[in-house]
């Protein structure tokens, strides 16, 4: 079912506070957080996506925009040329970062950790399902996931 403008108005009234809070926690900037939430609602007004879980969809959209802004700020700090950077270049930088994460997972993590991360985040399996698939305990799944994410955090979000 396609979402209409009345639905969007209702979602805005209901979720604006939570979305702004998430953006504010990520960006540490209330004004920028308001802008992000406004942009997300503007984009769904024009795209009118079909999604049963609109709350999850909107919060994820806010999160992704915030991460994009954080990366843009970091690049700006390094190069001081960010504002002049074309949009395609920005998108390319984000894509390159995701590729680096993908490469780090395949080259720098152990075989078992890589499989756990892939099953959890790519195939969306539950802990018990991963444990059954790999023939290990749920505690071991948790341990591999924690180790992998810690290495990723140190590398990409020190």
């Amino acid at each position, binding site marked *: 079912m396609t979402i209409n403008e009345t639905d969007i108005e209702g979602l805005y009234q209901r979720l604006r506070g939570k979305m702004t809070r998430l953006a504010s926690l990520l960006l540490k900037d209330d004004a920028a957080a308001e802008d992000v939430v406004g942009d997300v609602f503007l984009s769904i007004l024009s795209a009118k996506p079909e999604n049963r879980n609109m709350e999850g969809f909107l919060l994820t959209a806010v*999160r992704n925009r915030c991460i994009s802004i954080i990366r843009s700020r970091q690049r700006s700090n390094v190069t001081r040329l960010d504002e002049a950077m074309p949009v395609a270049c920005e998108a390319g930088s984000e894509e390159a970062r995701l590729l680096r*994460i993908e490469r780090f*997972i395949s080259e720098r993590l152990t075989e078992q950790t890589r499989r756990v991360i892939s099953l959890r985040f790519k195939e969306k399996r539950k802990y018990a399902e991963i444990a059954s698939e790999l023939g290990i305990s749920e505690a071991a799944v948790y341990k591999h996931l924690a180790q992998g*994410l810690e290495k990723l955090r140190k590398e990409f979000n020190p």
Partner: protein
Amino acid sequence: MTDIRQITELAEHPERFTEEQMTELLQDEENLKLYITVSETMMAMEAQAAKRAPKPKRRMMWAVAASVAAVAVMGALWTWHAVPEDLAVKELQAKVDETPNTHELAGDSIQENNQSTEATAIDSRQQEVMPQTANHIEDIVEEEDIDIESILQLQRERTESMLAMCEAEAILAEYYASQIASMEEPVLPAVSACMGDADLQQENIMTLIMQ
């Protein structure tokens, strides 16, 4: 103390958390960094999965293109089959042979783009579609009791018009050539540039000559 289960749950299903729970988790700097890491890892994994998934739109585009090309080829075959000998078929055929057909153009384009897989897909799709199209046309002719003679007459008239058009274009081309030959040198590169775009070629050359 970082709770990876809760952070991954928040990244995957933010709708399951209240604003207060979310705030409690993410106001801790270490948790926030982990949340961003989990989110980016998910995005990277999803992008990887999307890259490996089949691309139905693209496949469908090639199939449609192949079908259109096959129908065009069938139309051309039908035309040549229906044209009587006394309408200088050989002359017209020679003119057509000099012109690259849709299949050749598609082939050139594919080679340029190194898309050998798609080329194979087009070939096999054409092999599939062409006999089906021919059978379909025969079925329609039989079922609808179409008057073949009147179609042939229309085809003859059409071919006569095409021949007349070709002759007129040949005369026009000679005229353009003579005009271009008489131009001063700096104009020639501009004409060459026009020649690169088939659709604009005639219009632009005319504009240059008029100038």
